[in-house]
């Protein structure tokens, strides 16, 4: 439209200059004048169906009612948004709408604002005003075109093609979000799936989220698998509403290379998925949670606002906390996960704090080894938490005819009293084991590390050098090295950081002079040494077709030297001829 010409209009006496063709409702919004409407939304093209936004337009002697949502202001026009005429017209329109939707709150409210509480016209008891916002946002913004119009006149209605479930619907919920009357609603399906990528399995997911509460930098990301824009090419509503214009849908993930001298690995752990331990019912019963899910529920900004709730929305009256799920178990992980005892006690304390529920702890040994830990345990005991020593055998649903209908039964042997016990609870918390990250082997190869039998990265020396690794310049800290709690992690990470800083402060790295050397004249490029070098110190130069030793990494172990079929690899200062000469010299003296 050739709308670059500027025009001046007056709205309720306020003069405003604008481009020709700008709808009145936008100008009014700039002036802070409210014009009621039901069918207009900034994200879709104006439609002009509800007519509630009708305002009075005067030009010279002519005056008429125009719809503010789509009437393009012309030069010299005067607009009045709240005259007697406008109010009377609006009143009649709202009376008609009230006849159509006598029970819809927003219609009742708007009508009441114009003094209409009862309608003279035949009531229809519909909850859709045919404003078409849903249809328009679905086609114009989302681009899915899943819903449309059917019928004509009074029979006109919003529906899916042929009134069957539309395959085109992507379930984005945009229609429900814009629906003014609440006719359309979305029912969230809270799925709990194995291998769920995030910890957010307890709440509805959105395509835009902050990865974790402690994310650095703390900015939201867009999940391209869930974002409407990446599905249909439409939407971009977030881009429109973001005032600093920070959203760019064209941004892509990219690989960046950094050159560094030292690396600290803190890749953490993964939580053991208790689905595999069928006897504990995780994934089968509604109210069996892992410790991390519970942690999320306890969070005041979590899905339940910090309240402890069962799936049915009620507060549990009894909770069982099961220790050593997947740890200290020959079938899964023989090692102790070290942190469970203490956080289980913390859970008990938090639950005691927030609810009246009875708490049962099922443990094998209480491992409260840290500073102040034992005292905490004693305090929990004083708070009236039941502790039962014995590994839980299984969690089952209580049989419906018994008094404990609907509850979960925890079966175990109480080894202190030598009795088999069945304890009915509403909720079960499983203290899952700490596991190495599932891609630890990939990392191991990348950094030429070793792993202990439990799968965690192996340190250079368990007592004397617990943060370094056999690869120079690569350090480890935290749970990637083995299960540990926060104080231990902090201590280890600080020590690693200190080691790194010490190297940086020194400015140079001292290397022992005993190094391997591959003679480029002789090397045939067979790359046998590459596979054998335990330190990843040999690289193959594609362009020259030979292997070369990285002297900063070489430890002078001699593996490559002894294995080199062509004799190209030699040990500096310990060349064969040198050693022969030494031997010869020694033997000469004897003679």
């Amino acid at each position, binding site marked *: *439209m*050739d709308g670059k010409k500027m025009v001046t209009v007056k709205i309720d006496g306020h003069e405003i200059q604008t481009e020709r063709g700008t709808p009145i409702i936008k100008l009014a919004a700039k002036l802070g004048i409210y014009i009621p409407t039901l069918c207009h939304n900034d994200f879709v093209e*104006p*439609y*002009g*169906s*509800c*007519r*509630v936004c*009708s305002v009075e337009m005067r030009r010279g002697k002519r005056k*008429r*009612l*125009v*719809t503010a949502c*789509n*009437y*393009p202001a012309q030069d010299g026009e005067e607009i009045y948004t709240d005259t007697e005429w406008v109010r009377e*017209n609006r009143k*009649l*329109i709202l009376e*008609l*709408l009230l*006849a*159509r939707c006598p029970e819809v709150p927003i219609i009742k409210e708007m009508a009441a604002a114009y003094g209409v509480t009862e309608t*003279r*016209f*035949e009531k*229809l008891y519909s909850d859709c*005003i*045919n404003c*078409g916002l849903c249809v328009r946002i679905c086609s114009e913004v989302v681009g899915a075109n899943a819903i449309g*119009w059917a*019928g*004509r*006149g*009074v*029979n*006109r209605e919003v529906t899916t093609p042929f009134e069957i479930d539309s395959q085109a619907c992507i379930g984005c919920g945009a229609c429900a979000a814009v629906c003014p009357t609440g006719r359309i609603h979305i029912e969230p399906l809270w799925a709990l799936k194995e291998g769920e990528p995030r910890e957010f399995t307890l709440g509805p997911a959105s395509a835009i989220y902050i990865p974790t509460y402690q994310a650095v930098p703390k900015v939201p990301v867009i999940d391209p698998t869930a974002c409407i824009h990446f599905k249909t090419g439409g939407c971009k509503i977030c881009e429109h509403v973001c005032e600093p214009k920070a959203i760019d849908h064209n941004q892509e993930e990219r690989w960046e290379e950094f050159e560094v001298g030292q690396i600290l690995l803190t890749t953490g752990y993964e939580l053991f998925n208790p689905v595999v331990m069928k006897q504990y019912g995780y994934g089968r019963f509604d109210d069996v949670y892992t410790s991390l899910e519970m942690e999320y529920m306890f969070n005041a900004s979590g899905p339940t606002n910090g309240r402890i709730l069962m799936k049915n929305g009620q507060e549990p009256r009894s909770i069982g906390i099961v220790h050593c799920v997947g740890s200290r178990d020959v079938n899964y992980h023989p090692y102790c996960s070290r942190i469970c005892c203490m956080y289980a006690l913390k859970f008990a304390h938090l639950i005691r704090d927030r609810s009246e529920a009875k708490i049962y702890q099922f443990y094998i040994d209480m491992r409260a080894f840290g500073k102040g830990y034992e005292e905490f345990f004693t305090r929990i005991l004083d708070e009236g938490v039941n502790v039962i020593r014995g590994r839980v055998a299984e969690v089952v649903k209580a049989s419906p005819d018994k008094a404990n209908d609907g509850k979960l039964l925890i079966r175990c042997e109480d080894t202190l009293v030598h009795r088999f016990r069945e304890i009915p609870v509403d909720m079960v918390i499983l203290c899952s084991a700490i596991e190495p990250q599932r891609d630890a082997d990939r990392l191991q190869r990348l950094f030429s590390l070793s792993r202990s039998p439990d799968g965690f990265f192996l340190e250079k020396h368990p007592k004397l050098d617990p943060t370094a690794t056999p690869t120079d310049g690569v350090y480890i800290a935290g749970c990637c090295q083995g299960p540990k709690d926060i104080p231990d992690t902090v201590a280890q990470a600080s020590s690693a950081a200190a080691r790194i800083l010490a190297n940086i402060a020194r400015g140079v790295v001292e290397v022992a002079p005993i190094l391997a050397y591959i003679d480029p004249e002789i090397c045939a490029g067979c790359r046998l040494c590459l596979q054998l070098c335990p330190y990843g110190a040999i690289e193959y130069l594609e362009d020259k077709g030979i292997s070369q030793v990285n002297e900063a990494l070489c430890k002078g172990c001699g593996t490559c030297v002894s294995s080199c079929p062509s004799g190209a690899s030699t040990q500096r200062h310990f060349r064969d001829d040198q050693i022969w000469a030494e031997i010869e010299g020694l033997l000469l003296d004897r003679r």
Partner: protein
Amino acid sequence: MKKLKVEDLSKIKEKRIKERQLSEAGPYRARIVVHLGTCGLSAGAQSILETFESLVAQHPEAKAYILKCGCGGFCAREPMVQIETLGLEPVIYVDLKPKDVKTIFEEHVLKGSIVEAKRLSPEESFFARQQFLVLRNRGKIDPENIEDYIAQDGYMALAKVLTSMSPEQVIAEVKASGLRGRGGGGFPTGIKWETCRHAGEERKEERFVICNADEGDPGAYMDRSIIESDPHSVIEGMIIGAYAIGSRQGYVYIRKEYPIALEKLNIALAQAREYGLLGDNILGTGFSFDIEVHRGAGAFVCGESTALMASLEGRAGIPRAKYIHTVEYGLWNKPSCLNNVETWANIPIIINKGADWFTQIGTGDVTNNPWGGSKGTKVFSLTGKVKNTGLIEVPMGITLREIIFEIGGGIPNGKKFKTVQTGGPSGGFLPETLLDLPVDFDSLTEAGSMMGSGGMIVGDEDTCMVDMAKYFINFLLEESCGKCVPCREGLRAMHSILERITKGQGKEEDIEALQDLSKVMIQSSLCALGQSAPNPVLTSIRYFREEYEAHIQKKKCPAGVCPDLYEMTIIPELCSGCMVCARYCPTKAISGEKQKPHQIDRSKCIKCNVCYSLCKFNAIKKI
């Protein structure tokens, strides 16, 4: 066929006239004009035609030929035939049955003596007051033969425009003629063309001309008849319009329910293309233009300009806000000039005879103000309770009385005139006191009705105004697109109130509620359908308020139409006891003995009105 050049047109004309001239020496001495419009065909014209055809074949000595014409206009008396023979003036025969044909052929065509029994009386006033501009070729051409049209000066206007006039001159001529849109709005055609041309030139965009043949008003069939009988006049008008506006592509949006019109139109378009009157390089003048036909799918609202264009684009026919005019941003957002069939058909004659001639017909003065008067003629379909129903063309300014009582022949069965409804569902009812109202755009609008596309429905004393209003509201309720609240919800509310009133459950405040509804619909509906929808209700309240009050207060329907508001009764003094009513009463509600007054059992009576229409003694009354 070789594409025509300008000079070929008059050659074809002369040749065709010579061919068809009646003379003793020539091939023909008699012409039988059979009217084969939809109205004629439904009255049985096809078998009349076939009978004539076999007779003509049997009697080559008669030297007669049959002209298969379009609508003859006098629908009430179809099938209708006009016979022209040498030495006799043309004679019109009406109300024909196949058995009459032989007599007429033998007597009139062979022997030259007129069959008076079937002849339309020369005194008949039906044709007397009419003036044929748009229907100028009525009874003269075969719509399937382009040469017939050319013989009647067809495409001469086009030749004149293409050879001797600039587009601006054409627009000026149309503006000077004062022609106003015949589709209902009455917008000055010349101004529309000028704006469209201007918008296109300013933005350097292509332009479209569109013919609105989506005639949907109940009781209106002017456009159908024009296309069926004289499609080339519409095509010629469109080509001239396209030249004036600077368009290369035209569309005809024709309603689905007009199969014969569509067929004739397609034949005409194919012929025009063959003769080089459509397509590239028309008449060798370098101007190119073609027309595409688009069929509607049955929605009344698609006659509204923006809905029509949406439908043409392939979208649902739903109007949009018209703050931006279609002449600037119409079809595919290009400048588009939409005119009604009748408007286009007016163009050739205006060009041929000139604006000055045209302005002599009609009312007012349009020299300075294009809205200052109504010029030319208007085609109406005269229907309802009137003797001579049919398609008529009258000069603007004729009074309603002249139309109904002179052309229409008054009300049949000795009933009294009550109302005339003009303008279709968007128009209004006019009472007897306004019978002397001149028929033009402004007088009708002032009286609360409108010219509309030309439907004219006459109601007699048996017409219930509330029921009629309800009929039109119900029609619109079904045909509203349902987009905007005032139209959709307003019509629903109106209909339920009228329904209530006709059932005898009306309330005192209902009339005020109807007026309130009308107000909001007029001032804030999105398109003209909603804005004009209350007219039938408003005019019926304005002129026949007492009937509403009778329904509401006395619970009576004075016209005896609303079944809940009257009772059948037999007046004993008038009843002769003939038993006819008793025999035909479907529910056996009437009882009585021969020669004695009968009685009606009201608990059984279903008010089917069979007895009422059968009684020869007017003994049955509705009370």
